[in-house]
């Protein structure tokens, strides 16, 4: 062994040294180190769990936001539809009232036209009567002689009433 360069005592001392180191390490260093590693592992796990929760919360928020937007859009569409319906209803109402007013005006105008027509007709008739009687008067004035006048007077005097 000495020919090979291996010192037995040194080797033994190193082995003892190593054993001592191992015992000391196992007793005093490995436990805290392992504890530390476990703590780090746990912290990592907690972090991951938290990240997972955050991600989940974020996803939920996004979903809720999407749902709210959809609900808002729906409400807006409904409002627009309702406004359209109201507008149409009001338009129909206005048209209906306008039609009624137009009918009333039309009837009134027709009535006035009819009244005017009747009045005109009566006026024309009266004018014709006036002209006819005037013509007859003029003709009689020119054509009645004294004898005819006397004969007519005699005939008319038969219609005289008694005054007293």
């Amino acid at each position, binding site marked *: 062994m000495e020919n090979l360069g291996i010192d037995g005592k040194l080797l033994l001392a190193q082995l003892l040294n190593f054993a001592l180191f191992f015992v000391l390490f196992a007793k005093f260093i490995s436990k805290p180190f392992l504890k530390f590693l476990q703590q780090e592992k746990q912290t990592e796990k907690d972090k991951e769990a938290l990240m997972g929760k955050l991600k989940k919360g974020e996803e939920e928020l996004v979903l809720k936001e999407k749902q709210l937007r959809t609900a808002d859009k729906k409400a807006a569409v409904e409002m627009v539809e309702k406004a359209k319906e109201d507008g149409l209803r009001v338009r129909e109402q206005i048209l209906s009232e306008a039609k009624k007013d137009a009918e009333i005006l039309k009837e009134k105008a027709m009535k006035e036209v009819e009244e005017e027509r009747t009045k005109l007709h009566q006026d024309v*008739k*009266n004018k014709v*009567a*006036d002209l*006819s*009687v005037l013509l*007859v*008067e003029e003709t*009689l*004035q020119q054509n*009645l002689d*004294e004898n*005819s*006048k*006397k004969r*007519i*007077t*005699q005939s*008319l*005097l038969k*219609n*005289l*009433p*008694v*005054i*007293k």
Partner: protein
Amino acid sequence: MKIDPTIKENLKEYFKDMMKQVKEKVIITSAYELSNEEEKTIISSLGLTGGKIEYKVDPTLLAGVIVTYGSKIIDVSLKGQLQNFKHILYESA
């Protein structure tokens, strides 16, 4: 205003006489000059016994007479008949 009663009475009588004269006044308007016979016929037909009778001529009457007695008017002229006919035409449909 106080008026003497005598004057008041006299005024009353005067107005009464005037009214009587107006009431009893007869105006006969004809289309031509009436003869005496025609005048008598008219007077007897109307039953006029007295009072003043005035005769007028209006050729526009064409024929017949109009008798005015006070506020009454009796129209038996041809012109009057034509006017009646005109009013009948007005009222006809």
